[in-house]
């Protein structure tokens, strides 16, 4: 559970909001709030993770500072969310990675990439790493296929396990029933909400950015990021299928399905995060959790680096730079996966869980 002061502030603010309710048109948070009279720890944790940070309610708030009620829902909830990611991180010994997150992510990335580089050089020798390789299996001349598979899938699998455990604890603490997590209609509704990033549209006009102005910029940038990530994931899945089901080895043709998906995805995870970085830079700091911007920045930069190195690998795969690029790309992807449960990626898990919960609540009973 997040810190007591953060929870208490969220409860204080929700009690004020619940007696006003002017913001009910903005997003899911307020209709969900309306269903409650009293706010327990689990309630505010749930509401905080339902919040997409569109900030509409902040600029609309007659009780925002300097009013003595000092209501700042997006900031309060952003702080609570960050504490959710920290306190539901599994295993608990890694919680510390969520404080000063950028520093840790950078360190892990550098160390993993360096280790991978040193290991490859030691096993394969400089000549092999810097030679030009072409044709089927070219990448595996530098790093064998099995090694790539183990290196990437182990942290990915661990991340999934860590997230499942975190999500189940979260689900219990917000007071939802275990069975509800597996209700197809609620999950489908939540997937639709995520697919469209419905609540980043605020009340239908977008987030408030850079001030009280309504703008779809943040939603679009997030869509590029999210769908870019999905496409990269799809590309990898198709490639895995090619490899094991058909025995076709990478690299694939420029117009093959994995490469097209990967290219589009790579572009998405570069321009989406760049957009989000620009938005973060210009945005009003007041309705945000400025203490933990580092976590957001780290995640965005990791996605950009993943995309850029992946695209560079594609373009330069028939040159002598392929080997070094492969090492760097793989190192970054490894670090991305390793840090998934201990960084901003966690938002996707608790947001999804909260949206499933909301889908249940909003069903007429």
């Amino acid at each position, binding site marked *: 559970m997040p810190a007591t002061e953060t929870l208490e502030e969220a409860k204080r603010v929700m*009690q*004020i909001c*619940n*007696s*006003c*309710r*002017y*913001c*009910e*048109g*903005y997003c899911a948070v307020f*209709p969900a709030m*309306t269903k409650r*009279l009293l706010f327990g720890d689990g309630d505010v944790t749930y509401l905080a993770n339902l919040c997409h940070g569109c900030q*509409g*309610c902040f*600029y*609309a*708030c*007659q*009780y925002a500072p*300097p*009013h*003595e*009620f000092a209501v700042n829902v997006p900031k309060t909830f952003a702080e609570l969310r960050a504490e959710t990611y920290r306190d539901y991180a599994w295993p608990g010994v890694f919680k510390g990675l969520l404080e000063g997150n950028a520093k840790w992510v950078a360190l892990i990335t550098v160390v993993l990439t360096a280790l991978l580089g040193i290991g490859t050089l030691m096993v394969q020798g400089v000549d092999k790493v810097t030679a030009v390789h072409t044709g089927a299996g070219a990448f595996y001349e530098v790093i064998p296929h099995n090694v790539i598979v183990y290196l990437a899938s182990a942290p990915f699998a661990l991340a999934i396990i860590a997230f499942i455990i975190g999500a189940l604890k979260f689900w219990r603490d917000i007071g939802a029933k275990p069975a509800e997590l597996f209700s197809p209609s609620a999950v489908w509704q939540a997937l639709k909400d995520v697919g469209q990033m419905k609540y980043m549209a605020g*009340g*239908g*006009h977008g987030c408030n950015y850079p001030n*009280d*102005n*309504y703008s779809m910029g943040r939603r679009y940038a997030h869509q590029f990021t999210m769908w870019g990530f999905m496409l990269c994931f799809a590309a990898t899945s198709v490639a895995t299928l090619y490899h094991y089901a058909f025995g076709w080895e990478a690299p694939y043709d420029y117009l093959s399905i994995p490469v097209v998906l990967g290219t589009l995805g790579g572009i998405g995870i570069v321009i989406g995060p760049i957009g989000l970085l620009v938005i973060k830079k210009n945005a009003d700091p007041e309705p945000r959790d400025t203490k933990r911007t580092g976590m957001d920045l780290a995640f965005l930069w990791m996605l950009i680096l993943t995309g850029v190195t992946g695209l560079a690998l594609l373009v330069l795969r028939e040159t002598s730079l392929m080997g070094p690029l492969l090492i760097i790309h793989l190192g970054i992807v490894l670090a991305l996966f390793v840090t998934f449960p201990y960084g901003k990626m966690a938002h996707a898990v608790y947001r999804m869980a909260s949206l499933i919960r909301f889908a249940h609540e909003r069903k007429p009973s």
Partner: protein
Amino acid sequence: MSAALTARRMGASVLMIESANKDLRGGNSRHVRNIRYTHKAATDYVTGGYEADEYMADLMRVTDGNTNEELARFMIDASEDAVDWMLEQGIKFQPPLSGTLGLARTNAFFLGGGKAMMNSYFKACEKLGIDIVFEAEVETMEVADGRFEAAMVRHGGELHRVEARTVVLASGGFEANIEWLKEGWGEIADNFLVRGSPMNTGKVLRSMLDNGAKPIGAVDQCHAVAIDGRAPKFDGGIATRVDCVIFSVVVNKLGKRFYDEGEDIWPKRYAIWGRLVAKQPDQVAYAIIDQKSVGLFMPTVYSAIKADTLADLADQLGVDAAEMEKTIAEYNAAVQPGDFNPTEPDGCTTVGLEPAKTNWARKIDTPPYYGYPVKMGITFTYLGVEVNKSAQVIMNDDKPATNIWAAGEIMAGNILGQGYAGGTGMAIGTVFGRIAGEEAARHARN
């Protein structure tokens, strides 16, 4: 706003003088939720039609006929395109949702409420090149023979004389001016809470009346409701309302009841309780409920004061405990059995009690007990300047002023002699603001 934007669109150069700073800009309008307007059918924002005749009938009912019928009818007809016009200015509305207080058919609700609306208005002003000076307060108006010459404006610690060819007065009522309220209410006004802006001190209105503008409305007429006694003196806004009265027993400081708490559903009685409370000792009363009623009404911004016994609750509230226990015992004894129904008048009543509680009467007997202190919260005053259909200010000789128009609270008394129907304030401001802006711009051009 509506006047400034309309005038600017007609090519006039417009200076807006706002006494508030940027954070508090927009007066009472930043506290509003909705606008009541004439419409033929359901739209994205309302659930059904609300024709001019029905609007007029509602207005006649709430004001008890105390209105300028011709002007009211005109306002109601003109309100028909108010929402479309606001949309054109960039204002956003929300679909009718759960929290629309039974007004989902008649009123359109601003997305995010009044402050979001004002943000959009200010944005539109910036775009059109309307000059706005914040922290500039009009102290007095220079008017000669019904003709506006200049306004004396305090800004940056200095007094400036601001001349203009025409002027539109939209400076609200005088609800934040306790001294002026005392003229109508006496010393008890010290204990009133002001729900809206502390800026609406009525300086412009006072100066206009001093300069021979014809007053309309009584000095003690206003919209006032019962709000939580712990609310801030100013700007408490909507959240401080207390909606539990119909389920409660309301006592004064002496522990005595003074009015039928269950007269009608709460929205209809909302507005009379401000005045009722204002007549009690120290202008405060206490709504008492027991555990059974928890959750039946809108949540409150301040938690109820809670106790296991009525005596303890009375002590915490500062009410005469023995008297309150006696009052509630007598009330409990008078409660008749019935089918309690929180959503409509249920006929659950007391017998032989003075005053009776005629609906939702249930025994207060299940601890813990809860109490809310309530005070009178004044929304806005009705004493203002008389206007004609062109929103032109009428002078004491019954002739319209040459170049002075008025819109909003400062002339709301023309429509609202007494009483109120939710959303009328915005309708009055928007309709007359647009007309005032148009007329003032036309006059300035000639």
